[in-house]
């Protein structure tokens, strides 16, 4: 769905569930609660939900300048949930920071600080010590994907190992930055330990769009509807830096598992050793499979 179509969405009237299982190893369930529904510690279904919950995502409309009410509500939710399950991570999306109210970055930061301060106060009054993460988001740019990526990463125990592996890969192949993407949701599961530049994430996720769109035109076979993202899926895009610099950047995408793609940013000077990079990515692929297998076995043992 494109951001503009969301205009036609009606308010949710009841809780809806979504199963995300694009890759057999990365699965989770999203429960979408309507704004007016409350979680009660007396309701057995709610208790079950809270017990199985890994992350609680709370969305605050940044356009309403009155934050007291949504924050109080969040405090109540945290109070209820914390009593039942103290392992939940709480993520707050300060949403819709795309309107005229937030033209400057300072305005966004002010809003973030206000809400952060308020939440801290509210939680302290109740003596609740939980950690909250805050994100500024909008559906009109990549912030929503980026933020959701971070939420999901916290839920996956393997992420630390995968990141370490990517670190290894990029330092040995002279890659500048690499992301491991879920190609359907465009959420990134892991990246190397260098800081993430928003523009790198943006351009990589655009590359996935291009790959899927072009494959939909030329890459489908007689049995229509089969997966357009397959074992041979790959893409190389060459980009110049705007600003007239001689340096060129190569975006290199390779399939590494079902619905998972590794997207690398490589300086063109290093790209002539593509066969070596390929070999290293093959090794990475192997490692990735082993990590996922191990996680699966660990789950069985539990």
């Amino acid at each position, binding site marked *: 769905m494109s951001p503009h179509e969301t205009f036609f969405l009606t308010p949710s009237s009841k809780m809806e569930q979504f199963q995300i299982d694009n890759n057999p190893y990365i699965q989770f369930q999203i429960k979408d609660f309507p704004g007016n529904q409350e979680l009660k510690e007396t309701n057995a279904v709610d208790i079950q939900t809270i017990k199985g919950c890994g992350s609680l995502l709370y969305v605050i409309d940044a356009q309403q300048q009155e934050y007291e009410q949504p924050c109080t509500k969040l405090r109540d939710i945290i109070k209820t949930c914390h009593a039942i399950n103290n392992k939940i991570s709480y993520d707050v999306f300060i949403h819709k920071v795309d309107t005229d109210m937030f033209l400057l970055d300072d305005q966004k930061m002010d809003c973030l600080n206000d809400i952060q301060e308020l939440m801290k106060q509210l939680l302290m009054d109740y003596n609740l010590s939980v950690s909250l993460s805050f994100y500024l988001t909008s559906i009109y740019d990549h912030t929503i994907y980026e933020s959701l990526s971070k939420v999901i990463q916290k839920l996956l125990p393997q992420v630390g190992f995968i990141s370490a592996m990517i670190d290894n890969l990029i330092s040995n192949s002279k890659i500048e930055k690499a992301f491991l993407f879920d190609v359907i949701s465009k959420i990134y599961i892991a990246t190397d330990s260098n800081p993430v530049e928003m523009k790198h994430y943006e351009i990589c996720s655009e590359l996935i769009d291009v790959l899927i769109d072009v494959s939909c035109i030329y*890459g489908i076979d007689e049995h229509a509807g089969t997966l357009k993202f397959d074992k041979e899926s790959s893409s190389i895009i*060459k980009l110049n830096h705007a600003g007239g610099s001689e340096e060129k950047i190569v975006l290199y995408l390779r399939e590494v598992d079902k619905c998972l793609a590794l997207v690398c940013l490589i300086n063109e000077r290093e790209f002539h050793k593509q066969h070596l990079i390929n070999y290293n990515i093959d090794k990475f692929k192997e490692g990735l499979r082993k990590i996922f297998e191990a996680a699966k076995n660990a789950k069985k043992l539990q």
Partner: protein
Amino acid sequence: MQPQNQDGEPEKIEKVLLMGRMSAGKTSMRSIIFANYLARDAYRITFTHDVSRSRVRFLGNLVLSLWDCGGQDLFMVQYFQSQREHIFKNVQVLIYVFDVTSKDFNGDLQYYENCLEALTELSPKAKIFCLVHKMDLLAESQREKTFQEKRMKIVEKTKGFEVDCFKTSIWDETLYKAWSQIVYFLLPNVKTLEKNLEQFCQTINADEVVLFERSTFLVISHHDAKGHEDMHRFEKISNIIKQFKLSCIKTSFQFQSMVVRNQKFTAFIDEFTSSTYIMIIVSDPDIEQEAIALNIKATKDYFEGIVSNSF
């Protein structure tokens, strides 16, 4: 005297009139095709005052002089009276835009007739394209029927000229399709280009070869050896690349070339002549990527000659 470009070579300037009543969407579509606008940013555009002229360099020495004529009734009256000669003389192409949701279609037709009348007098050889625009505002099932109805009426009113009608929307590939056809009409040497592309396509054993104009990504020419089913594929590709180019600008990169593949195909999109991009689709897994890249390089100069000697 013939106008010249910086290098002293003769230029061919084609005058293209873009007309239609107010808020039909003329400026929006012009901005999307020629100025790299995204469809969703088009709502920022306000009405065009009088005539907004722009020049678009197209394929080497072909220059489109695009006259975007504001559609407010007040201006329209002026076009037909005091500015009549200024506007309607030496016109090669008239693009008339109808708003499909217009409540006053007969009024729109009246203005259209006035335009034709002025053209009969001042540029009797002009070619007419009618775009029935904003199709996205109709329900899918209604589109074809409504379009045919409008088309009948338009053709009926068009006397003494040839007219092509298109249904368009800025939200999908139809807009690219229509404009590609318009550009196709303006290129005199298209047949030679097509023949050469066909030969190139056969030589390198490709499924398909497509030539795009560099700045707009409109399709100029193509050869299809395999018979692909999707009729709108080029316009889709244009859209995909253009979207990607825009993201590149936002992230301060510049698009240069790409290779996309899966088990079924490999697609190459690369800079070709100074005014074009080429796309090559290959499904034979035995053809090496490097061979294609080399072939593109080897034929560049030859095609450069054909494209720039188009007139």
